[in-house]
């Protein structure tokens, strides 16, 4: 693996390798000294063209726990706001000797451009690009599912036969897309539930069932996992549903719907949550909710990814 751009390119074995290494990284989080010397002397740049707190902090914590040096670069207040191009920014980072670049960009495909260009010779990790992919989020979600569904026996397992329902703004969600590809690779079945206005074109050719009715889907599939997506008001240029209250009533996970889930099923949310909109406070704080575990697991997954991309010998300079 040279870069991590998309979960679509991951094979089953590669995905399980990342999840298994993340198990070892999770063990490190429970020790007294939560640091490994593995990436000493390597430099990781967090290149964030789009606002993000938790993903950036998570990558920063992961890199620091592996002893890498971390440089945070956010577009606000930087030379990018003065009109610098991605190419010039990348070449600047290359000149500073970045070994890994974690990039978040509002344009789908920006990490791909960086990886394929000869502007920079660093390993690229996609931390979310437009409405395309967010691979580390999907990996940490799969990791969280595996640990919850197979406690104590998660190592080496795939998610064969697990049924996952993803609810909400599929149209704008890179999390839903990355999750779909990864979950299918790991053997799970996926159902998207959303208002018709928030289902992207082309889902007919994706390996997924699409439903517009949350109650019917929950009753029919009895899912192992319900993943609620955030309603992304910053990407809503038009009205996709009449009012927030109507959305919450039809597609929100409220206390009543939570009560109808199987008691051993889990409720996930990538955060940040809009409490009262897509998820009720009761559901978010219930024992079935994995929201905080997802945050903790995010650091383990990102450590595993940085380890895999940055630790081995540099392939012969191609």
């Amino acid at each position, binding site marked *: 693996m040279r870069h991590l751009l998309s979960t679509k390119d991951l094979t089953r074995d590669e995905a399980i390798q990342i999840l298994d290494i993340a198990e070892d990284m999770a063990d490190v989080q429970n020790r*007294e*000294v939560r640091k490994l010397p593995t990436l000493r002397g390597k430099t990781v740049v967090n290149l964030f063209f789009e606002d993000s707190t938790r993903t950036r902090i998570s990558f920063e914590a992961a890199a620091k726990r592996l002893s890498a040096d971390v440089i945070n670069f956010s577009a606000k207040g930087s030379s990018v706001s003065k009109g610098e191009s991605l190419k010039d920014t990348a070449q600047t980072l290359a000149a500073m000797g970045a070994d890994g670049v974690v990039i978040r960009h509002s344009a789908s495909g920006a990490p791909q451009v960086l990886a394929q260009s000869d502007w920079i010779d660093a390993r690229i990790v996609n931390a979310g690009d437009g409405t395309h992919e967010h691979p580390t989020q999907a990996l940490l979600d799969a990791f969280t599912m595996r640990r919850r569904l197979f406690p104590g026996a998660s190592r080496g397992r795939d998610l064969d036969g697990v049924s996952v329902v993803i609810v909400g703004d599929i149209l704008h969600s890179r999390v839903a897309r990355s999750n779909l590809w990864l979950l299918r690779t790991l053997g799970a079945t996926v159902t998207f539930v959303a208002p018709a206005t928030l289902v992207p074109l082309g889902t007919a050719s994706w390996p997924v069932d699409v439903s517009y009715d949350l109650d019917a889907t929950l009753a029919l599939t009895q899912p192992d996992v319900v993943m609620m997506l955030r309603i992304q008001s910053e990407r809503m240029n038009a009205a996709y549903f009449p009012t927030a209250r109507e959305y919450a009533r039809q597609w929100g996970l409220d206390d009543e719907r939570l009560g109808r889930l199987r008691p051993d099923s889990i409720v996930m949310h990538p955060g940040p949550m809009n409490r009262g909109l897509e998820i009720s406070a009761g559901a978010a704080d219930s024992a079935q909710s994995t929201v905080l575990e997802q945050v903790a697991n995010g650091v383990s997954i990102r450590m595993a990814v940085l380890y895999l991309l940055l630790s081995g010998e540099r392939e012969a300079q191609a």
Partner: protein
Amino acid sequence: MARTVLQQADIARALTRISHEILESNRGAADLVILGIPTRGSVLAERIGAIVAGIEPGAVPAEMVGSLDITMYRDDLARHPTRTPSPTQVPRQGIDGKTVVLVDDVLFSGRTIRAALDALNDLGRPRAVRLAVLVDRGHRELPIRADFVGKNLPTSREERINVRLESIDGTEEVSIEEAPGA
């Protein structure tokens, strides 16, 4: 061609002797932690733990034996393709104040043991650290020496030592393979 230097019975005798020596130097099994270095060191640590438990009444292998992965502490990570780490399992009581015996199959340059000492440092503060190896083949590159040795095998740098253990390889022997083309 490979030449067998230790047979199954030789390995069993060596492990029994090492177990007795460990107990002798530790004056019993109290506060003893035996950590194997994956993959074959872990198997040897389990076997030593079982023998120790057979000698010392009251010693429970599960509370004494673990494994210590050193992948993340290697000094040659940048010179090889990425390695997949193995789990580290430390007995529940931890290693603080204990006597830790590290177990590996072959002692060669000493770099693995250096990495293991660093890894131990991050897990706690043992009272003492000892080293047990099945084979010491010489050619140390660091000031490290084993406390308990199954067999000293003088080798040339070009030769390969193969340790095969029943539970991993299906057969049990230690053999020396000559360098290709030698």
